[in-house]
């Protein structure tokens, strides 16, 4: 029988958030790329929460955009509500979150894929990797078709040997009843890839018409919209927003859950996978925080043209009857109708310690991976890995060095370094507390940090780059100017200061010094700064933050300098840890397993102590002397 055989530069397996970014990046860098999905209706699917961004995830989306990825642009086109979170806190933790119209999000991304040059979108299940002598050669699909490729990116999400569970019900499907991928796991094992089994879960979707919103608190979007993409201005994307609603569980809810715990597949031991501690099911919350009398629930629209609402905060795998009973104890949900049941999903993923920081498998050349397949959780975490995997798969094809972002450059760098370096036994979720250099890695300056890199890679075109350079110049010039604008202690100045609750001037000051006062900022001093040229909001924001927090930023930059010294101490590939005297056995095992790229990375491996690092550095120095 004749089989179909095609040739590509890059094959991407899976068209979720990771796969889409990977395929777009590779195609945009000029590689002939094909992306496989089990269903054309599940491209960039949001099978769980209906929002993009949020605490630290918003940072990831802005970084993806700054590098030339698609997620930020796609959500800007399809959001139905936008909010900057944590505004009462410092600028490091401000996080943008948008509610998405799920269908629109998915369709818009599919449209983008289908209209990108060098990119083919194909519905088929990939069942086998073709590997020869440790080098990837292509993939085989269920029909037997062979797709030859120079590099392959795996982004299978939660589909590998997936099964969905609630109560006694088990469906051998991927999320949302979609076909699972049941063959690829075996092919991975045959090629020596170590697999983990993780689980996650999602709440029920309910009918809007069965909800009593009158007893809930309405959650509005922001009036001032901050776009995710640096290519958009507020006026480009401003639109009418749709509200979310806040309500709470209560003790009756918790009692029903406790009484039925034995019917939960997780507590009954049917599920073997490890779930995310940071995104617990309602059963977990009730058990782990037994003293809490209520938990917040957000009722969020799934889109503009659907009556489905998402019950945020109440994911579960309890049986259908218990789901009805518990949801109906919630204020406003007394008569709720469920459209889709809550469920837990279990799937195969890999131990990401098998990857290099470029997201290429150490033992299979040319094979890259990203997203939940790598043991992460969340759309944004997936997308940013997909982007990096796609870029590096393309660069490998083009004979270029991989792009690796470090922990001082981006949350993306923190995420990938954590995955590849540390032990990870549950779906990995991004959090601001994971980043050491938070004050530098803000969501507002992602373009300052990463757009030059995106341009160099080739995903940011010259037009966008020129705009970026102009913005940068405006910021620098204005900061310099403010240092030299002297303000006298005249009546207008004193009155303004007084009205802003600030101390009056004794003698002169510069505008820069005034901006540094906690109660003042760049914006509010406009009346005493007549020479000021009008600047865009995002430019003004950079000026303000850079001046106000100059001292802190400088000190954090010094920390980064120290950090870089350790990162720049590269460990030779040929190192034999057995030869390093005085290294503890545990450290030897861990170092062999992770194979760190630098001493800095080695120091972050759990089980490798500071004294092991000292020993390693002395050994490396001795080796250097010997040469």
């Amino acid at each position: 029988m004749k089989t179909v055989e095609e040739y590509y530069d890059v094959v991407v397996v899976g068209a979720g958030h990771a796969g889409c970014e990977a395929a777009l990046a590779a195609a945009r860098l000029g590689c002939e790329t094909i992306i496989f999905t089990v269903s054309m209706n599940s491209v960039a699917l949001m099978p769980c929460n209906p929002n993009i961004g949020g605490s630290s995830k918003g940072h990831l989306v802005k970084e993806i955009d700054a590098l030339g990825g698609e997620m930020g642009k796609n959500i800007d086109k399809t959001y139905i509500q936008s909010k900057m979170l944590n505004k009462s806190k410092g600028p490091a933790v401000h996080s943008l979150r948008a509610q998405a119209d799920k269908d629109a999000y998915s369709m818009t991304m599919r449209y983008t894929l289908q209209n990108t040059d060098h990119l083919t979108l194909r519905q088929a299940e990939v069942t086998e990797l073709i590997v020869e002598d440790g080098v990837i050669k292509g993939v085989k699909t269920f029909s037997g078709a062979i797709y030859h490729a120079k590099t392959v990116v795996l982004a299978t999400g939660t589909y590998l040997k997936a099964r969905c569970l609630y109560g006694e019900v088990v469906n051998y499907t991927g999320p949302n009843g979609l076909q699972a991928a049941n063959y690829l796991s075996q092919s991975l094992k045959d090629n020596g890839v170590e697999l983990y089994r993780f689980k996650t879960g999602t709440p029920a979707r309910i009918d809007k018409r069965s909800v009593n919103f009158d007893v809930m608190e309405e959650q509005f979007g922001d009036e001032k919209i901050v776009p995710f993409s640096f290519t958009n201005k507020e006026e480009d994307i401003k639109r009418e927003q749709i509200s979310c609603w806040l309500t709470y569980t209560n003790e009756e809810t918790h009692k029903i859950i406790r009484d039925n715990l034995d019917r939960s597949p997780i507590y009954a031991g049917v599920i073997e996978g490890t779930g995310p501690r940071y995104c617990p099911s309602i059963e977990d919350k009730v058990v782990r925080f037994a003293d809490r009398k209520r938990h917040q629930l957000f009722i969020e629209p799934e889109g503009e043209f659907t009556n489905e609402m998402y019950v945020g905060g109440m994911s579960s795998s309890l049986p259908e009857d218990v789901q009805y009973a518990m949801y109906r104890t919630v204020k406003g949900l007394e008569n709720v109708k469920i459209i889709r049941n809550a469920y837990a999903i279990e799937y195969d993923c890999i131990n990401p310690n098998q990857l290099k920081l470029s997201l290429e498998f150490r033992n299979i050349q040319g094979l890259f991976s990203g997203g939940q397949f790598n043991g992460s959780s969340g759309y944004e975490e997936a997308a940013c890995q997909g982007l990096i995997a796609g870029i590096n798969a393309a660069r490998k094809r083009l004979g270029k060095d991989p792009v690796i972002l470090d922990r001082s450059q981006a949350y993306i760098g923190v995420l990938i370094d954590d995955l590849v370096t540390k032990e990870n036994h549950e779906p990995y979720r991004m959090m601001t507390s994971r980043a050491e250099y938070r004050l530098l890695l803000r969501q507002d300056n992602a373009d300052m940090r990463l757009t030059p890199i995106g341009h160099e890679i080739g995903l940011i075109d010259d037009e966008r780059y020129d705009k970026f350079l102009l913005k940068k110049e405006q910021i620098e010039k204005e900061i310099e100017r403010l240092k030299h604008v002297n303000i006298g202690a005249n009546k207008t100045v004193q009155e303004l200061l007084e009205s802003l609750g600030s101390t009056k001037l004794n003698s002169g000051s510069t505008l820069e010094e005034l901006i540094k006062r906690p109660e003042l900022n760049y914006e509010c001093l406009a009346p005493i700064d007549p020479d000021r040229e009008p600047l865009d909001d995002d430019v003004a924001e950079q000026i303000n933050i850079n001046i106000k927090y100059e001292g802190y930023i400088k000190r954090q930059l010094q920390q980064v300098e120290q950090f870089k010294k350790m990162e720049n101490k590269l460990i030779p590939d040929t190192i034999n840890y057995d030869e390093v005297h005085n290294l503890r056995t545990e450290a030897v095992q861990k170092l062999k397993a992770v194979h760190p790229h630098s001493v800095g990375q080695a120091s972050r491996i759990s089980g490798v102590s500071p004294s092991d690092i000292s020993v390693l550095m002395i050994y490396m120095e001795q080796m250097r002397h010997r040469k």
Partner: protein
Amino acid sequence: MTIDGITLNIVDTAGIRDTEDKVESIGVERAKKEIESADLILFLMDTSVQISEEDIEILQRIRDKKKIILLNKSDKATEESGFEQSALKEYISEETPVISISAKYGDGIDNFIMELKNMMFHGRIDVNQEVYITNARHKDALAKTYESLECVERSIEAGMPEDFFTIDLMNAYEKLGLIIGESVEEDLANEIFSKFCTGK
């Protein structure tokens, strides 16, 4: 250095004698100062020769200090050498330990250490109760920790969000970590190579 858990900061001084040599006289002056501030004097005498006037002068100078007299070169001490141990009695009290040792062969060193510990543990050495920082690196780390903690204090007082003062808190933590070995700085290997020859 540490002997059986006792941390000692030992200063090897120049011999004390009258000299016209400028450089040497600086050393002598320094030695005299060290005698003033030391908790314990280890007076090393050469038993292969007679007690000199300079020795006597030193004994007089350290009359009121806690001390151990170490009679070195016990291996060479013979009657002919003319060293009269009894002559020391005039200058030292009865409790002052006098121990014969041979630095060359290690004889008597055990006795010396035993005596040292006795004096320490029985409170016969009046050790300054203040905490001593014996390592310049540690001193530097502590100074920087202090500086950073002051920054933290100022930030908290100014009502800054935690992401700001954690910068300085981390700095303080890292510096303290250097002392107890919880953090490692990149120049560690250089530091070690500058102090020791670790061979090739």
